[in-house]
């Protein structure tokens, strides 16, 4: 997977740093130097690396004297924040028009335009129920139109072509006319690969742009691209006003630093990532995830670090002691649940723990709703009831349920969950005593 080696490198840098208790100019300098090399080896553009390093340096030095956090944690956080900023904060979808949405795919030869055209069509047809028309505008590369035709057939979407003895501008015009007339939702135009310095071919794209006015002009960027990728992106952007970038071949072992560089220097959003050879292998590009991956946060250690940051340490200590002693009421349950939510969405946590299955969006949504129900039920109880949920009689439960607009069943569910948690606490305490689980709770609660 892309970025993994970069993540490894960062991790080894941070490991080295952990052995020291304080950031000094000297020890930061060596770590910074290694970060620089790592980024350059990942094909991040030289100028971007320079700017990135400057930012990290300034921020790390400024905070050093003021805070008492572990220097490596601080540097992780600063690097992470910087990378997230560099990669852009949002993930961005295609801008769909009310009527026909026209998309033009452009890029260098071999960057993956035709395959990505197919993948986009697949996504729009099967996930979004759009009526899609593909148009083959690559009249130059032998069999390029056949290739797209075959893909269209595979996907069972319609395909527009006029052969190879025709001006691509005309194909674009006719394709759009057809798409409008026959009520398509989306028209995707696959253009021929070209060098950004090929004036005649760039003019052709400009003409298509002027004639068809696509809603999206997407540049394909190969994850393996080197330092020159920013020049390519800049030139295409200047001529065509790109609306976004698709990174292709991210399933390779290239680190894909070009993604960072292009986003940083052009501000263009990276909208999709190609992650395999099959038609379904197109994913949304998640900048935050990518930044996490760069920093190698795929381990429990970072979960601990994030948790530490999110919760008030003293509060956590008190909490832990109470829980261990079995003095654990519904207020504590709620607090615990809220802490977990503060650490990050459940999805983000699952992502950080190796081997943990990823939660779907629906599951995450369900977890959030559950939290709301719990809060409503617990808030509707008296303080005494919250501390001693076992004493709740049927009539009490009725009152609580009415008070929060829930049913008795939901009140019972909250109490059952509390009982389960309490039982788990007891087991953990026993395990800790017998030495099976050294040091505190998972998630870092109360670890001193």
């Amino acid at each position: 997977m892309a970025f993994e080696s970069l993540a490894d490198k960062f991790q080894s840098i941070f490991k080295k740093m952990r052995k020291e208790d304080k950031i000094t100019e000297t020890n930061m300098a060596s770590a910074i130097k290694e970060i620089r090399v790592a980024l350059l080896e990942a094909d991040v553009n030289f100028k971007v690396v320079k700017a990135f390093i400057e930012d990290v340096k300034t921020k790390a030095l400024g905070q050093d004297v003021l805070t008492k956090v572990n220097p490596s944690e601080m540097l992780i956080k600063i690097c992470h924040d910087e990378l997230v900023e560099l990669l852009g904060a949002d993930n961005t979808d295609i801008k769909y028009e009310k009527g026909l949405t026209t998309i033009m795919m452009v890029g260098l030869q071999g960057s993956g335009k035709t395959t990505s055209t197919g993948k986009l069509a697949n996504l729009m047809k099967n996930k979004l129920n759009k009526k899609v028309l593909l148009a083959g505008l690559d009249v130059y590369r032998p069999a390029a139109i056949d290739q797209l035709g075959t893909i269209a057939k595979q996907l069972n979407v319609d395909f527009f072509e006029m052969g190879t003895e025709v001006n691509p501008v005309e194909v674009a015009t006719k394709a759009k006319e057809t798409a409008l007339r026959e009520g398509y939702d989306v028209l995707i135009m696959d253009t021929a690969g070209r060098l950004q310095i090929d004036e005649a071919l760039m003019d052709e794209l400009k003409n298509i742009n002027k004639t068809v006015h696509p809603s999206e002009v997407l540049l394909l960027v190969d994850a393996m691209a080197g330092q020159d990728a920013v020049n390519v992106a800049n030139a295409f952007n200047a001529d065509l006003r790109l609306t976004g970038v698709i990174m292709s071949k991210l399933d390779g072992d290239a680190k894909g630093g070009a993604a960072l560089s292009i986003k940083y220097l052009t501000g263009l959003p990276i909208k999709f990532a190609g992650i395999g050879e099959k038609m379904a292998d197109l994913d949304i590009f998640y900048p935050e995830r990518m930044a996490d991956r760069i920093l190698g946060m795929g381990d429990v250690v970072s979960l601990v670090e994030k948790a530490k940051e999110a919760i008030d340490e003293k509060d956590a200590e008190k909490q832990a002691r109470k829980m261990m002693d079995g003095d654990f009421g519904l207020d504590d349950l709620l607090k615990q649940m809220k802490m977990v939510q503060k650490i990050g969405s459940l999805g983000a946590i699952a992502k950080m723990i190796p081997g943990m299955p990823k939660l779907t969006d629906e599951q995450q949504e369900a977890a959030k709703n559950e939290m709301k129900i719990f809060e409503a039920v617990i808030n509707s109880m008296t303080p005494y009831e919250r501390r001693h949920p076992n004493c709740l009689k049927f009539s009490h439960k009725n009152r609580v349920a009415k008070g929060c607009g829930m049913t008795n069943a939901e009140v019972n569910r909250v109490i059952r969950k509390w009982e389960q948690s309490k039982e788990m606490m007891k087991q953990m305490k026993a395990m800790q005593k017998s030495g099976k689980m050294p040091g505190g709770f998972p998630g870092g609660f109360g670890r001193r």
Partner: protein
Amino acid sequence: MGLFAFLKEKFSKKKKDEKTEKYEKGLSKSRQAFASRLDDLSKRYAEVNEEYFEELEQILIEADVGVSLTIKLVEELLEKSEEEGITEPSKINEELIDAMFVGYVESGGSITNEIHFRENGPTVLLVEGVNGVGKTTSIAKLSKRYMDQGKSVLLVAADTFRAGAVEQLKIWANRLGCPIITGKENGDPASVCYDGAKYAVEHNIDLMIVDTAGRLQNKANLMQELAKMNRVISREIEDAPHETFLIIDATTGQNGVSQAKSFKEVSDITGIVITKMDGTSKGGIILSIREELGVPVRFIGLGERMEDLEEFDLDEYLNGLLVGNK
């Protein structure tokens, strides 16, 4: 005489032949960003200092030469400048070019670029690479080259995976007027190789070129498929494949080294063809690949026309990239 001066002299005296012109034209865009920056740099500094070397480092890294090789080159220059008291920027630049040249030559054996033909029976060339580097186009160009030299060429379409790949090669075979062996879509590429080898032997073909599907080097099963194709071919024709070319896109960054390493593990790479050198990329990755793996560049793609594939010539490459007619 340093290499830089040597190149200048050689190419200024030499009546420009077609090859030099192709190199100079094909590399003109790369040169603009590389040579003119070097030149500009040497004009901005009266003598070299720390900042000078930092800027030099930047120019090399931006040419995709790679961090470790760049650091090595710049450190050598620093040492030389201190030891021999060289402070003049243009002299340092000449030393750099010398170092690049010497480094390349010393990293591998002597270089003969043309395909080495067997005395008897078909010579087999296997063409490999990641997706989208220009394998099929390079094969067409190579076929043209050797057909023009009077060799009989057979194309074998072993990319049974990508939609339209077989069709693409068929169109080339038609245009070139050479035979082609194809298999079933999504069939076993090794069996197409088998058919190709049989045909090549029966028809006494001089050069059989096998087009393979693009594959990312971290896909173990696809790399194994390549190993299998190698085995099948070698069973049918003695010592085949006799040549295996890895195609590398000039726009590739540091991943190029990983590509060369991985493909070398499953097949005996005898040369690299670097494509798309007519763009603005400098193709510096070939220096790193040579440095780390000793694999020579055999051919260089300098344009879209069929004739735009040239034998790789280090003199011409460095002249085209660094000197040329500014």
